[in-house]
């Protein structure tokens, strides 16, 4: 049964779809970590807030597309606010302290969401235009899930182009390699960091919105995705676009296939994979070489 082509096709698409969501989440986290040695543990919370904002937007405007446009912006705004109010003043302190603040935010975000939207799970409908099913190599597959894959690929292409072609991209690449060097060149690293941080928040919000019609929206959805995202970052190697892409693909596929092929190990497959990667390559599959 597990080698049936139909099963393989559908399952691979499922894996690809999870991979793309993980990519949207991990890339922002990874690049910010690469630049500032700081990891935002509230990244999952931003994802959750993105989904909830989408819920409210859909209720208000009755359109998924408006939510797709607005909710990630809202999340980016929250991220910007968080940066301005808390992070900016902590720049000179140890990154550990910043990480701890974001950890506190998980608790706050979780209850804030419950206060505003309640504890009962919600869903938003799949947009009309994507509600149908598509035949992929003869197998029925929900069109909306293909849309998620497409979004992921589009973001990947845009980020690649942005990193290679734009000035900000160059600063980011250089900043990941050697931050003090870039600062010494008179480039405003902090501004670049701020922009990258906001972009990361926007992407987390985007992931929240696009996943909302497929996964249900509930308080606590932040943590399950955060752990997976962290594992992607660790496995891929922080700071590396390539690492985020490959890490997402590996984790997405292993998780998707592992759940049904070896269900008794479903909960540990991913962790075991991470441990194995760390044993052989302590800094991830695609470590960024730092010059100090």
């Amino acid at each position, binding site marked *: 049964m597990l080698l049936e082509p139909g099963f393989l096709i559908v399952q691979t698409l499922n894996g690809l779809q999870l991979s793309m969501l993980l990519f949207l989440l991990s890339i922002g986290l990874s690049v910010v*970590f690469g630049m500032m*040695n*700081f*990891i935002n543990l509230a990244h999952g919370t931003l994802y959750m807030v993105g989904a909830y904002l989408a819920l409210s937007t859909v209720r208000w405007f009755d359109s998924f597309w408006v939510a797709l446009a607005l909710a990630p912006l809202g999340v980016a705004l929250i991220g910007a606010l968080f940066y301005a109010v*808390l992070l900016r003043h*902590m720049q000179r*302190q140890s*990154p*550990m*302290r910043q*990480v*701890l*603040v974001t*950890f*506190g*935010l*998980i*608790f*706050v975000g*979780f*209850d*804030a969401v*419950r*206060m505003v939207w309640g504890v009962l799970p919600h869903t938003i409908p799949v947009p009309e235009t994507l509600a149908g099913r598509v035949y992929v190599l003869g197998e029925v597959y929900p069109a909306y899930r293909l849309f998620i894959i497409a979004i992921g690929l589009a973001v990947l292409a845009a980020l690649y182009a942005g990193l290679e072609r734009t000035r900000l991209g160059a600063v980011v690449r250089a900043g990941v390699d050697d931050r003090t060097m870039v600062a010494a060149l008179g480039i405003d690293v902090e501004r670049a960091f701020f922009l990258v941080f906001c972009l990361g928040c926007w992407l987390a919000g985007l992931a929240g919105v696009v996943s909302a019609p497929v996964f249900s929206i509930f308080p606590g959805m932040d*943590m399950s995705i955060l*752990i997976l995202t*962290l*594992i992607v*970052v*660790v496995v891929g190697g922080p700071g590396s676009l390539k690492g985020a892409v490959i890490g997402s693909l590996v984790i997405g596929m292993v998780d998707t296939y592992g759940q049904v092929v070896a269900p*008794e190990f479903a*909960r*540990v497959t991913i*962790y075991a994979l*991470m*441990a194995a990667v*760390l*044993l052989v390559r*302590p*800094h991830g599959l695609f470590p960024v070489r730092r010059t100090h």
Partner: protein
Amino acid sequence: MPGRDPLHLPAAAALVVAAGAAWYGGDFFLHEVLAEIAIFAIFAMSLDLLVGYAGLVSLGHAAFFAAGAYATASFTVFLGWPAPAATVAAVGCAAALAAVAGVFAIRVGGVFFIMITLALGQMVYAYFFKAREFGADDGMAGIPRPDLAALGLDAAEPHVFSALTLIAAVAVWVLLLVVVRSPFGAMLVAIHRNESRVRALGCPVQRYKLAAFVLAGAIGGFAGSLIAQHTGFVSPDLGFWTVSGEVLIMVIVGGMGSLVGAALGAAVLVLLRHELSDGAFWEAIGLSADLASYWQFVMGLFFIAVVLLAGDGLYGRLASIARRGRRLRRRGA
């Protein structure tokens, strides 16, 4: 360097006063809370050895808490061992788990270590959640407390058990105090401050970190064993990330790098949790009792405030006030 703790005596005095008052005057609820504080103080002090001294910020310390609790449950319920023997075995199990996990975890530092330990905690949680032989998600019940009949006491009595946990907490405090004041403790602090230099001086830092990780894991397992006896019940939740998070919050709120601080953080957090999750508290300050279900919100804000405003934790703040007071007095004299 460790060991400069201006509040050791006052803290010990406060503890004696609290214990005495509790033994003679406390009701059931006070004893429950005291025992919980003592157990979490042990747990927090063990984490403080890692976080405050060795500089290894772990978000998976609950793994050892759960391992110790489950080991205690298994040895008492399945094998019928008396509670003290099960505790010893549980500490051994937690240490063994820490040794295996530590080999992986200490290879990486800083934020990586956070992520690895977070994953470790979730792995242990997931294991117990699934393991049918340990009751899976329903957990295990019927864990006995030590038999103190020889002393004419009954550990099932809340005040006896809370006294027992307080004694255990003091014992752990003394043990850890000896460790952090020893050359080994100084070496952990040195590794925290400047790892490459310590390595260049010929100190096998990995082995030291592993030793600290194992010791912290073992004591975390001891706390887990006590919580199993305290509640008489274990469940996978003991290993959940929020437990690791809460104990880290205790250490940071109380003040990293100070054992008394960690214990103080445990006391503050346990009390805060009890009060904030009680509707009566909110009504008493003129707000809706419904807020009780959002106590994590307040706790999160409190935590952020402590990290932002009192980087050295409540204990650090108290200690600096005490120092200032002493200076003033000296000047006056």
